[in-house]
Every structure is written in C-alpha cells, then in structure tokens.
C-alpha cells in the first residue's frame, strides 16, 4: 500500500513521465547535465560562502575555510 502511494505521488509529480529512453537525445547533451561545470560551481560557492551569510543549496554547504 505504502509502495503504491509512493509510486502514485511520484507519478503525479512527474506529470505524465512521458520521456522514453530513446527520446533522450536533447537531455543527453553534456550541457543539459545539471552539473555541467563543477569547478565553476565550486569556485562560485567558495567566493559567495566567504562574502555572504548563506551557503549550500545546490549541494552540501560550502565550508572548509576560515574565511567566514
């Protein structure tokens, strides 16, 4: 029952979930990855962590720096 509910919720959240494996031509392009430029993202997170009171969100919060 629980499993069915979870599946239903996921199905509802996913709209019709109509993207089939052979329709992933666009999504498979490297620039469509959500982590296209991890080093750029890490650098930005580090700069903003040291200059602002917020961090994290995209992944685990910045840190490892005595700059804040």
């Amino acid at each position, binding site marked *: 029952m629980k499993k069915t509910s979870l599946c239903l919720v996921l199905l509802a959240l996913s709209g019709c979930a109509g993207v*089939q494996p052979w329709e992933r031509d*666009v999504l498979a392009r490297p*620039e469509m990855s959500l982590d296209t430029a*991890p*080093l750029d993202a890490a*650098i930005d997170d580090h*700069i903003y962590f040291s200059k602002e009171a*917020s961090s*994290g969100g995209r992944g685990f919060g910045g840190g490892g720096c005595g700059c804040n």
Partner: protein
Amino acid sequence: MSDKDTFNATLAAATCALLGSAVATPVVAQEEASRWSFDSTLLYYGESDDRVQDVSAAVSAVRDFGDERKLSATLTADTLTGASPSGAIALDRPQTFTSPSGRAVYTTNAGEVPLDDTFHDTRFALSTSWTQPLARLYTFSAGLGFSTEYDYTHLGANLSLARDFNKRNTTVNAGVAWSQDDSNPVGGRPVPLSQMLDVGNNSNKRDGSESKDVLDLLLGFTQVLNRTTVLRVNYSYSDSSGYLNDPYKVLSVVDPLTGDTLTRVPVGQGPDGVYVFESRPDTRTKQSLYAEVKHAFGKPVLHFSYRYMTDDWGIDSHTGEIRLRWPLGEGYIEPQLRYYTQSAADFYRASLVGGAALPRYASADFRLGEFDATTVGIKYGHDTASGNEWSIRAEYYQQSGSVPQQQIIGNQAGRQQYPDLSALIVQFGYRFKL
C-alpha cells in the same frame, strides 16, 4: 501496465538490445581510450580599494572504471592577501588598532571604514569522492574533504544515495555530510566582548584551537519534465555548533550622544579607541530550499536557479541566478546574472553604546548585515579539434548594504557606514581527457 506501456517497454528493450549488440565494440574502445578526464582552472579574484586579492588554481581528475563507477579528486590552492573590514566604524579622526597578532598596530585614515590589512593566507584543499551503482536504479556516493590554512583546518565526510524511478525520469536522493573545523587564530582566540588591548598584552586571548562541527542533511528530487526540460529541487538542513566567532572582528564602543568611538590612552602602542571583540552564538541552524531548471530551446540552453535560505540567527536570503548558453562557432558564449539579498542577523550591531549593558551576542561583521549583491558575468568556451575545451569567464560582483536607521547614532549619520564591495573575477579553464 497498459498495452501501450507494455509495447513501449518491449520496444525499449528491443532498441537497447539492438544498439547494444551493434555498438558494443566501439563503446569499449572509447572507454579504454578516455578513462581519465581532467578539469583545470586558474582564477583571479580582486576586490576594489586594495581589499582581498586571491589567486587560485584547481585541478579536478575523474577516473572512470566503467559500469558507472567513478573516482574523482579535486585539489585547490589559494593565496590570499589584502585587507578586510574589521567591523569598527569610520570616524572623523584617524584610528589606531592592535593587529590580531598582538605584536603591532595599524592605522586607518579619518573618514574611512577601518580595514585590517594584516590579512594574508595560503590554503590547500583536497576533496575526493567515489560513485557507483549499488543495485539497479540505485547510485551510491561517498566523499572525503580536507583543507588547511595557517589558522584553520577542515575535515569532512559525506555519503549519498540516489534512486531512479519512472524509467529514470525521476531521481530521489538523500545525503548526509559531517565536518569538523579547527580554528587556531593568529595571536590567540579573543574572549568574546573583551576589549582590544595594547601591543604585548595578550591577557584576553586564549591559546589553542577551538572546533566547529557541522552536520548537513540534503533531500533532493530531480525530474525530467519533458524532452527538453529538467528540474531539480533540494531541501537542505545544516546544523553548526562550536566556535562560530570570527576571531578578527571587533565592534566600536561609542558615545551615546555623538556616536563617536570612546577614546582611550594606550600604554606604549595600542588602540586609541574602545573596541571589543565580537560574540556570536555557538549554534546555528540553517535551512534552504533550492530549485533549478534547465531548458533547451533548440541548441541554446537556459538555466535558472533560485534559493531561499533561513536560519535561527534571523538571516533570510533569496538568491536567483540565470545563465543562457548560446552556441557560437566551435564553442559557446554564456552570459550569467545573479542577484542575492539577505536580511541582518538579530545580533548585528553597527556599534555598541558605551555605559549600556553589553548584549550577550553582538557582531558588526558586514556579512551578517543587510545587503544586496549582484553578479554580472560572461563565459566563452571553445571546443578544440581533439575534443577538449578551454574557456574564459569574467564576472563582476558588487555588494551594497545598509545599517538599520535606528542603529545610527549622532555623527555616524554623515559618514560611510557600510563599506560597499566590488570585485572582479577572471577565470581560465581547460578540460581534457587522457
């Protein structure tokens, strides 16, 4: 399962089987040829008015072991120099401060927001992670991180597990990270709210290091919305406890009427005004909600993200970012725009009033104040004939803040209260495979 679903599943299986048998050999050959991929970057970060300057280099290496098993490691080196606001207010007279080491003094000109120019550091950071499928539809990853600088060390570990649903159109992931940071400030840890003392008098400083523990939890949800759009939503919870002060930040203690810093007469060399070291709570809980969308309009790709963060220090922030990647010749051009705004911490004080009872917590660190920040940037990436990529990115970051009106006392009204900040960021990148 409906007839259509059954048909689709059968067709998918047949397609995979056909593709698999037809291209098996070339795929293996390609994997053999490019097991290692590298991403390297060189960064310059420079603030206006001789404030912080940073030159940083980072190299990230990923070793692909096949079957979606990957080991990655990133090594970063930073060299920082320059000046950073101490938290003291500007005055119509020059001001003298004892440097954090307790061995010398530095001065600030009349009318200027005091900057501590003894700031310089070199930092090395290493992070590694291992990712592998755990079962069909499950992906596991684990990482370790370490960083060291003159007065600070960090050690962290993280684990995460992702599960695909819905023909891999939906991914749910959960992660946990823990870190311990040790702070061992130059000249010792000042007792919170104790006065800045003369050169040679370290009686308010404590030796040895203090630690901070951070626990992060993350729950994420990624959804393919259609053939050209993907959405990610993350909820994060972060709990810090331990030494959360910035040992180098002070507050000016001012006259209740004029708003000018109270004067003192140093014995030998020392501060000519009354300054006390900041005091922050020893716990902080942050929560954030982050959402991002990527959408392809033909070749161009639009990326939008938004983050809301709130914490129990009274800080709320909103961050919005947009990037548009536009194909250009053998590469692409990507304009970027980011806007950030935060409210002040409950214990943010531009200054403390002399004679009044000291609050338990107080900080004049501008990063805990109310401000907005805008980043405007552009990146150009170029694909080489051998399949590598080089890129250049330039960004301009500008912060502009304000002190709450009710905190401005007497003469402070006519002076610069919040030091606006602007910085130029230039970054070169090169990605290659071996």
